[in-house]
């Protein structure tokens, strides 16, 4: 019982904080609530016997990426989101690639629904996989990551590289070498 109670408390925290992220007017509070959500997720990983994943979540997402977010929010020092015209246009009528965002969002929701349906058919939400303990060990995770899931691993790293190159290209000023 205490473990499933922990599950409901942590998942409630994660969902609640994520919902509040969207609701905030102040981007600073959005970032902080996102950190709360990530921390709750890390707690969920611990209940699933995956302490390494939990700590990676804390270090990479809650630690490094969110510090970067805070840095950008503080650098721009925007007290409020600038709404105005952009907010009033319907998502589908926005110019350029903004429309594709909607398509991606719909896809994401569809995928989520599919994944949830699959999980529901498996039964209990708590407990995770039968071999959860094995996946939790760092040694086994490294082995699986570089053998069974090596394609996904490499594809992800290429994706990150593409994003990095894209960011550099976008950030480079005209005329710079």
């Amino acid at each position, binding site marked *: 019982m205490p473990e499933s109670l922990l599950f409901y408390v942590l998942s409630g925290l994660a969902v609640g904080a994520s919902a509040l992220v969207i609701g905030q007017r102040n981007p600073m509070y959005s970032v*902080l609530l996102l950190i709360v959500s990530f921390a709750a997720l890390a707690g969920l990983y611990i209940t699933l016997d995956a302490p*390494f994943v939990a700590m990676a979540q804390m*270090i990479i997402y809650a630690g490094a990426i969110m510090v970067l977010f805070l840095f950008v929010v*503080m650098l721009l020092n925007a007290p409020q989101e600038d709404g105005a015209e952009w907010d009033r246009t319907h998502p589908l009528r926005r110019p350029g690639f903004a429309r594709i965002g909607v398509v991606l969002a719909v896809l994401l929701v569809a995928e989520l629904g599919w994944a949830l349906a699959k999980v529901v058919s498996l039964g209990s939400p708590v407990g995770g996989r039968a071999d959860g303990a094995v996946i939790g060990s*760092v040694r086994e995770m490294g082995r699986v990551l570089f053998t069974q899931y090596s394609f996904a691993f490499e594809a992800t790293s290429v994706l990150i590289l593409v994003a990095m190159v894209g960011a550099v290209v976008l950030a480079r000023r005209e005329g710079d070498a």
Partner: protein
Amino acid sequence: MDQTILRPAVVGLMIFIVFNALIIASAILVYAERKIMGFMQQRYGPYLVGPYGMMQPFADILKLLFKEELRPKGADKLLFTLAPVLAVVTAFAAFSTVPFGGETTLFGLLQQPMKLGVADVNVGVLVIFAVTSMGVYGIVLAGWSSNSKYALFGGLRASAQMISYELSYATALAAIIMLAGSMSVREMVDAQTGYWLGGWIPKWYLFIQPVGFIIYFIAGVAETNRAPFDFPEAEQELVAGFNTEYSSVRFALFPQAEYINMVTVAAVATNLFLGGWHGLFPFWTPVDYYIEAWNIGWLVFLAKIGGILFFYIWMRWTVPRYRYDQLMKFGWKYLLPASVINLLVTAAAVLYFNA
């Protein structure tokens, strides 16, 4: 006595001891810093309160307790209050997985021997790293919520500095994780027992990972915002940086968090590179034997931490502060490549010798 009650009680006692030891350590560090600074600048340092001025930190904290708590008008109330609490809580929490001694039965009180340390987690290194990386939020939020330009700059610098040096810090740790083949701090320490070269050199990771130790230490100084990397405060440039608008107890919490973080960095350095509570003396002296026999390894541990902390303070009053662009350049162009090369070389060596 009933072991089922006794054991949790002992764990509780351990938490109590560690918590208070950290508070006392920060008081001692305040005194030591002022005294050593005085010595290096050829003056006395504090000498009026108590014998040799030893009660100075307590006088300081009493003074701060009676000060008025000020808050700027435009400050964000919630975050302004939360920031110092966050800083100090993460500083305390980071020490929870740092082991500081071998096993003890507390003079036969416990049936099963207990390991000295609050919690023994098998991903201990990562827990320490994760919690210390949360510590920067206290500083960043303090800077942002004060609604003051100097504080904001301090917070900005803290976050940029943290991102830059965290990478090298983690990469230096990863090399040690590979050498030890474990993420448990206790197992890493136990892997460093014994001697090389007929007992002349203790088996510390410092001697196989000298580059790693230097990188870890530099990044650790940057992470704890100490000179020569104390940019978030930089009193000559930013008044007092992120804590410009703080006063009274809220202000006192920031230096306290800083000193506790210093102790944690020194403790992790001791455990990972300097053999923790093992071996300090050459093998032919019986000292090491008695240290193990009497189970007073934690004294050795304290001595090593003290040495590192002295070096910390020494550095602050010897090396001038970098320029901000130099800090970024140094972090990204020298420290990070050096740590990545160190990691690759270590990985190759581990594969070659252990495969």
